[in-house]
Structures are given as C-alpha cells and as structure tokens.
C-alpha cells in the first residue's frame, strides 16, 4: 500500500485528534502513474535529458504552493520551437500536474507558476519540440510537514 512516510504521516494526523483536514488522502493510491503519463505523452518515444530547466527552491516553504520556473533552450522560430511543456510528479496523487502549450509566437519558452507537491520528490518536466522530439529536465524539492499543525 504505502511507504513509511505515508504511515508516519497517517499516525500524526490521527493523533492530532479532532480535526482531520487533510490536503492529501491518508492512504495515497495514485490514480495514475508517472510512467503511464509519460508514455501517454511520448507514445513510447525516447525522452532525452537536457534543454529543459526546472528552477524551484531546494526546500519548499509549504507543499501547498511551490514557485516553479520551467524554461526550455529553444530558438522559438517557426521551424524550431517548443510545442508544449508537461509537468509530472512521481509522488502526487495525480502524476500529471499541468501541460502548457506554447508555439513560435511565444518568443521565449519559459513558464512560471506555483505548484502543489505532496512531499519531497523529484519533479519532471518534458518538452515536446516542433520536430517531434522530447526533452526533459528535473528538480529535487524537499517538502516537509508544517511544524505546528494548524487545523484551519
């Protein structure tokens, strides 16, 4: 079912007593897996590591909102540009976090957003290029529980 970290978090949440406001399920059963989502995107094609940079803090303030910059090294011309950037998580309940569609009109392949991360993990970003190739970049983010339980 789950790893030690989920069991320990479940225990903490039960001990907190009255209010069980959970941001994530106590028993995480991913509805989709990272590999399935990657295959869905690439159709089984090779993904080359490189050209994609995921810029995010090494230690997140809070897993509910983690700033993230995705940038792809691309000339962004009509002949050579980024079609889309897909953001994937190996640890969130839903592996597919978001997909952003760009195109040559963007001028620069860079997205900034804020994401939710369900615990420490390595986030994966895959860029689909106009020539049909796939490139990827990753970032490790430490995500901890709040020191003082809030209960809203």
């Amino acid at each position, binding site marked *: 079912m789950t790893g030690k970290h989920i069991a320990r978090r479940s225990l903490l949440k039960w001990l907190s007593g009255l209010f069980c406001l959970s941001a994530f399920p106590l028993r995480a059963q991913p509805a989709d897996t990272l590999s399935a989502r990657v295959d869905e995107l690439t159709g089984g094609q090779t993904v080359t590591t490189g050209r994609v940079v995921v810029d995010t803090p090494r230690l997140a303030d809070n897993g509910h909102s*983690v700033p993230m910059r995705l940038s792809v090294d691309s000339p962004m011309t009509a002949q050579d540009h980024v079609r889309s950037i897909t953001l994937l998580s190996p640890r969130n309940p839903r592996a597919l976090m978001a997909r952003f569609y760009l195109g040559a009109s963007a001028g620069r392949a860079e997205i900034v957003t804020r994401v939710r991360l369900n615990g420490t993990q390595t986030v994966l970003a895959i860029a689909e290029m106009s020539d049909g190739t796939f490139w990827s970049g990753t970032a490790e983010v430490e995500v901890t529980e709040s020191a003082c339980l809030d209960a809203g």
Partner: protein
Amino acid sequence: MVARVQLPASCRAGEIITVRLVIQHPMETGFRYDVRGNRVEKNVISQLTCRYNEVEIFRAEMGSGIAANPFLQFHTIARQSGDLVFEWVDDRGVRGEERARLLVTEA
C-alpha cells in the same frame, strides 16, 4: 472570480513581452475533508487559453498539482496593439474571463 492581468505599459513591435495572470480560485484537489469529515469535491481550473488579437498564443491544461489561486507567467512576441483575452473554465463548468489591452508602438 477575481482575476488580474499584468502587461507592460507599452512595448515595441517585435519585443518579447512578459504576460502575467493570477486568478482567485481554490483549485480544490478533491482530497480534502471538511469539518464534518466529508470529502470536498474536486474543482480545478482545467482549461485556460489566452488569445491575442483573436489568435491563441497560450494554452494551459491544469490539474490539482497547480497551487490555489493559480499564477501563470509566460511570454509572447508583441505585434500590433490589441486585446489579450483570457478565458478559462473549471470542473464545475464555471467560466471566467479577463481581458487587457496591449499597447504596441512601431519598432
């Protein structure tokens, strides 16, 4: 829904500009429980588009992995003065729209 768009005050044709959007929306994951112990239903902004002078320049498919009150920043090449129109819809089918005028001077 309260939403805000930020564009440069003015820019020159051909310049790559930064576009920013923030929307007040809980991006409810569907994994939270209310005080009675009932699941709060999932409700996220799933589809968002931006059109610039009627041409789509950006599209986002988002899930619960995007934080509440979604913030997006992307770029586009300024061509002619015109409207940037953002449209989005959430899981409940509630639509939102925000538009802003971009002033582009000749290069």
